[in-house]
């Protein structure tokens, strides 16, 4: 028995087996329970140690040889797998409430397994190939064969596909830089190609225009899942790159580039969000700003930045899950997601409206909500190294607040005599309610997730020290 078989091959095979199932509730429950089991196993079952079950003795090896290369899941990566599969279970349990379980659960599980494979593959730069395969699977996940594809999905496919050659080429060039560290030209060339690859993958400014388009034209719940899983795995992959190459870790220009891109994404994401009249596009720019926060965390001293980066992950997962589920429910009940069509919806779908507002406020970093602790720590650490950076982060955060309050104002602008009625069904209300409670728990008791997060930096040999 080995870890890649349990956490990569088994979910992939299970996802294929789920495909013929046509019952939303069964799919949602089976997918959710299965991923919870994977998360629990990742957190509690020890790897590379003998595990005694009565008379049986099991040992989970960490590697699997496949076509001359290896998939390796180290014991230190257990909490990350628990986080990924735990967050995936949130989406799967919510899939029935969003009425998207039929395609979402099997394809989502397959995408998740591929993203885990991208973290596990050795040599690690082959991760780009697994990410590209996941991207190709994501196309049927967010589009329907019965509806013409929009420009957003085409751009998504192009940008994400172009990332793969850049990453693989940069891997080759970086090996050359390691061999001859004095070759500054080669270092600059490899850094440029690497930067371009990650700019495509993480949708760094200005390559993020597909995100708002996709949220206009595709189901918000599935797009939300994609906006969570792709950047999360890509960021872990990116940190692996930084950890592996010492010249990259110690380069001041690289830190400046990361900080500049993070601030650009945060400021533009926030400002664009503040001027949108479409609640889907506001979520899109919110997720762009989230990636900006993550890049900013990476630009800090690794002893501070890496724990903050991991602290951002659970809040992002929960925030986007609640946000996209609330959007899906509101979209069902209105003609479109434009402000003119969702005006006063708080009285028609109060729980979804509250979920939307709270998830958006959490992304902005509103106190008491999930996003707050990580943003506060990030702002504090950033202000210690760059006041200009802290100022622009403030601009981004204030703009996100403006977008959230504008959205809240529009949702609550009902006719004077309109009554309150909760039109969400019990399952939608339950999932949103649990999500909202989760956002408060993450905000009030951030140490609750330290159980998962405390050991995560140890998965990086240099950055985690």
């Amino acid at each position, binding site marked *: 028995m080995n870890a890649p078989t349990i956490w990569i091959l088994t979910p992939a095979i299970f996802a294929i087996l789920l495909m013929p199932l046509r019952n939303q509730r069964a799919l949602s429950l089976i997918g959710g329970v299965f991923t919870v089991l994977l998360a629990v196993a990742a957190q509690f079952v020890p790897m590379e140690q003998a595990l005694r079950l009565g008379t049986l003795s099991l040992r989970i090896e960490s590697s699997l040889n496949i076509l001359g290369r290896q998939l390796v899941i180290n014991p230190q990566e257990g909490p990350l797998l628990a986080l990924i599969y735990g967050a995936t279970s949130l989406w799967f349990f919510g899939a029935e409430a969003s009425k998207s379980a039929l395609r979402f659960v099997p394809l989502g599980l397959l995408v998740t397994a591929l993203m885990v494979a991208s973290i596990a593959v050795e040599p690690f730069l*082959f991760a780009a190939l697994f990410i590209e395969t996941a991207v190709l699977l994501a196309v049927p996940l967010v589009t329907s064969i019965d509806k013409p594809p929009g*420009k957003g999905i085409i751009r998504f496919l*192009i940008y994400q596909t172009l990332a793969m050659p850049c990453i693989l080429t940069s891997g080759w060039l970086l090996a050359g830089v390691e061999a001859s560290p004095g070759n500054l030209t080669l270092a600059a060339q490899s850094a440029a190609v690497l930067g371009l690859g990650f700019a495509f993958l993480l949708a760094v400014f200005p390559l993020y225009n597909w995100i708002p388009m996709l949220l206009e034209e595709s189901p918000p719940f599935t797009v939300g899942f994609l906006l969570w899983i792709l950047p999360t795995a890509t960021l872990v992959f990116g940190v692996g790159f930084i950890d592996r190459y010492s010249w990259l870790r110690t380069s001041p220009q690289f830190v400046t580039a990361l900080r500049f891109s993070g601030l650009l994404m945060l400021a533009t994401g926030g400002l664009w969000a503040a001027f949108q009249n479409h609640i889907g596009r506001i979520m899109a720019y919110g997720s762009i700003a989230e990636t900006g926060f993550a890049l900013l965390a990476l630009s800090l001293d690794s002893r501070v930045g890496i724990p903050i980066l991991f602290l951002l992950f659970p809040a992002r997962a929960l925030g986007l899950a609640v946000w996209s589920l609330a959007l899906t429910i509101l979209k069902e009940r209105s003609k479109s997601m434009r402000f003119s069509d969702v005006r006063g919806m708080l009285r028609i779908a109060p729980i979804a409206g509250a979920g939307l507002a709270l998830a958006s406020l959490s992304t902005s970093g509103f106190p008491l909500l999930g996003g707050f602790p990580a943003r506060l720590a990030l702002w504090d650490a950033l202000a210690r190294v760059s006041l200009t950076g802290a100022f622009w982060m403030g601009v981004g955060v204030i703009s996100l607040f403006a977008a959230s309050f504008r959205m809240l104002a529009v949702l609550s602008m009902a006719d004077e005599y309109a009554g309150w009625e909760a039109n969400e069904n019990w399952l939608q209300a339950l999932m949103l309610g649990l999500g909202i409670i989760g956002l408060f728990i993450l905000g009030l008791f951030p140490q609750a997730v330290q159980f998962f997060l405390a050991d995560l930096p140890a998965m990086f040999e240099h950055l985690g020290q």
Partner: protein
Amino acid sequence: MTPFLSQIVILLLVATSTGILLARKWRWLIAFLSAQYAGVFLLALQHLPLGMATVKVIAGWMGAAILGMTHSSLEEERPETLPQGRFFRLVAAGIVLLIAGTGAPFVDSLMANAGMIVSAGGMLLIGMGLIHLGVTDQPLRVTIGLMTVLAGFEVLYAAVENSILVAALLATITLGLALTGSYLMIASAKEENQAETI
């Protein structure tokens, strides 16, 4: 590869990639794409064993077949309006050709002396694919553009990496792209059918 054969391969790639850029009929697109993969095979053969180079051409031909079969089942032959501005495309192709020719020595040195022909061929395909992606948003053409870029990359990458896993994953991605393109073409056809009904 003899100098004569090298010139033939480059000429083949110039003809097929320019043909893809200029072709109006989808049948020509598929034919050019298939011929292009024959050129990719010959270039990949410079650094890969026969079996692994064959995987690339078979994956490419299967991808072309998937796209062709999907398109043929979707609609009857009708006058194509795209591509417009053939002269512009021809000029753009000329510029890419110029860049590939002049940039090949640089890429050659960067990619572990892959060989001038391999570098020029790879650059040419990547450039032509990018031009194609820049001028269209039709699923068939976007897919072919992406396959062209990836084919160019595969030619170059074969010089530095000959792992079986990478070859298998790249072949999977080529096929996956073709399947995704087919999926998007089928979905696009719904729009056209709806528009005709209205």
